[in-house]
């Protein structure tokens, strides 16, 4: 389905009964070159780039639910590449560059809005840490600006600068960061992949892997067996469960993070702001709702919902940062599942089983990585060699000690 002014006019005059589905709701065939387990943002991006960049179109995306119903529709839509460690920055910056030309690339309105991501600091020590982070980013060619108090005041005069406990001293600003309409990312990639011949199969749960002589030969699903030369797992949130079917134990725990939306308000917050003295981040959607969140709940969970102590903690953070939002009412909140890896960084790698690839461990940062993750994963699957931006995101780094621990918390996922 393509859109134009003409098609809009024609459909407006005919009662909007002429719109067609944007991608084929395919029936699974007996076999494929590549089967991708999972139909989330990363899986759809992987299928899209497999077809577009590598000409591999004999691909199936197997989704146990429906497209756009998992974490790609449950995040807070923020994109950024303000990372510290050399193992992480290239992948997130690759992703940021892909975001910047995504809409032209897949010809779909994903509402990419580079409205700027500002991380506030509240102490001298935190300023030094952000200066260091900004320098690391700039060494890697990423934009970063260290703002002082007046610089922040110019952008956001309504913040609580003189909080006795956490006065705002300044912030680290990435102007190229921003927000993207998350559902449209899934739909755009799905349409682009489907148009190139990829089968998107919904309501098809993978229940096992066929492995012979250390090599994967296919998958069993709720809709029958499917042969495959290569199988790629991209099911963040449920990676441990799927990998267990292939006999793997992963360095991952599943956790829950909550997100919140207020009632619609007139425009007040032009960019993305994060509070440095607690954990609170906020932006405003184009519909007017304040979209915000904070810490993960901190215990293992597959429930897709959280508990009230975190609701209280997040709202306290919001009130400390911008008391002006105190009278806005929360419209709804929800939870999404996280693959919390043991060092807080993702995994894009081969597995001990030949022909089986793993994309996992995105913690709470999966959405911003969607294009880069798909691009690098497609490269790995097509060429059997890691993409240069993802060479450090290895599965065996925990065994060899080459951890990418942005926060320096050690192997305690609920603290990352």
């Amino acid at each position, binding site marked *: 389905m393509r859109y134009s002014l003409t098609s809009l006019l024609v459909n407006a005059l005919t009662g909007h009964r002429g719109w067609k589905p944007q991608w084929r709701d395919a029936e699974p065939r007996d076999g494929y070159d590549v089967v991708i387990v999972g139909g989330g943002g990363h899986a759809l991006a992987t299928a899209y780039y497999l077809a577009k960049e590598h000409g591999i179109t004999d691909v199936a995306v197997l989704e146990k639910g429906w497209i756009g119903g998992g974490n790609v529709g449950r995040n807070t839509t923020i994109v950024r590449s303000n990372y510290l460690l050399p193992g992480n920055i290239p992948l997130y910056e690759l992703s940021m560059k892909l975001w910047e030309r995504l809409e032209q690339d897949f010809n779909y309105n994903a509402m990419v809005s580079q409205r700027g991501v500002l991380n506030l600091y509240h102490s001298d020590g935190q300023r030094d840490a952000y200066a260091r982070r900004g320098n690391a980013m700039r060494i890697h060619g990423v934009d970063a600006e260290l703002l002082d108090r007046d610089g922040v005041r110019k952008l956001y005069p309504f913040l609580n600068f003189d909080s006795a406990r956490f006065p705002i001293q300044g912030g680290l600003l990435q102007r190229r960061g921003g927000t993207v309409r998350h559902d449209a990312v899934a739909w755009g990639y799905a349409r682009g992949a489907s148009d190139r011949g990829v089968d998107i199969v919904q309501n098809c749960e993978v229940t096992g892997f066929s492995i012979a002589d250390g090599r994967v030969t296919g998958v069993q699903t709720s809709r029958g067996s499917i042969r495959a030369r290569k199988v790629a797992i991209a099911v963040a949130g449920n990676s441990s*469960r799927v990998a267990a079917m292939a006999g793997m134990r992963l360095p991952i725990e599943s956790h829950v993070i909550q997100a919140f939306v207020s009632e619609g308000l007139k425009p007040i917050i032009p960019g993305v702001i994060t509070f440095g003295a607690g954990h609170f981040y906020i932006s405003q959607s184009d519909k007017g709702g304040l979209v915000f969140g904070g810490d993960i709940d901190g*215990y*293992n969970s597959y429930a897709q919902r959280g508990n009230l102590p975190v609701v209280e903690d997040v709202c306290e953070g919001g009130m400390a940062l911008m008391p002006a939002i105190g009278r806005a009412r929360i419209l709804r909140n929800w939870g999404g599942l996280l693959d919390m890896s043991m060092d807080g960084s993702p995994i894009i790698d081969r597995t001990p089983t030949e022909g089986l690839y793993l994309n996992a461990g995105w913690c709470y940062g999966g959405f911003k990585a969607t294009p880069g993750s798909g691009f690098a994963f497609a490269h790995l699957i097509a060429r059997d060699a890691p993409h240069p931006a993802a060479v450090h995101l290895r599965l065996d780094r925990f065994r060899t000690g080459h951890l990418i621990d942005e926060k320096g918390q050690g192997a305690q996922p609920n603290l990352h």
Partner: protein
Amino acid sequence: MRIPCPFCGLRDSAEFSYLGDATLTRPDTTVAGAEINAALFDYVYLRDNPAGPLREYWYHGAGCHGWLVVERDTRTHRIIAASMPHAESLP
């Protein structure tokens, strides 16, 4: 989520800190040998991460300061049981 502490009764989970999987056993690091590295790697990094009942450590920091072993269903957050662990199995 409320946790039935054996000493303090039914308490809000906000009073507790979470450590995680209580089914892991720390390998004996006083024994030399190459296999100790593999065993430590397993212990420190790898998890079963089940969707379903999980035995896990919670610390009642705002209460009795006891370490509890809580069995909880990770799909529903239902608490199945909470008890004091045996001293020798503490992390």
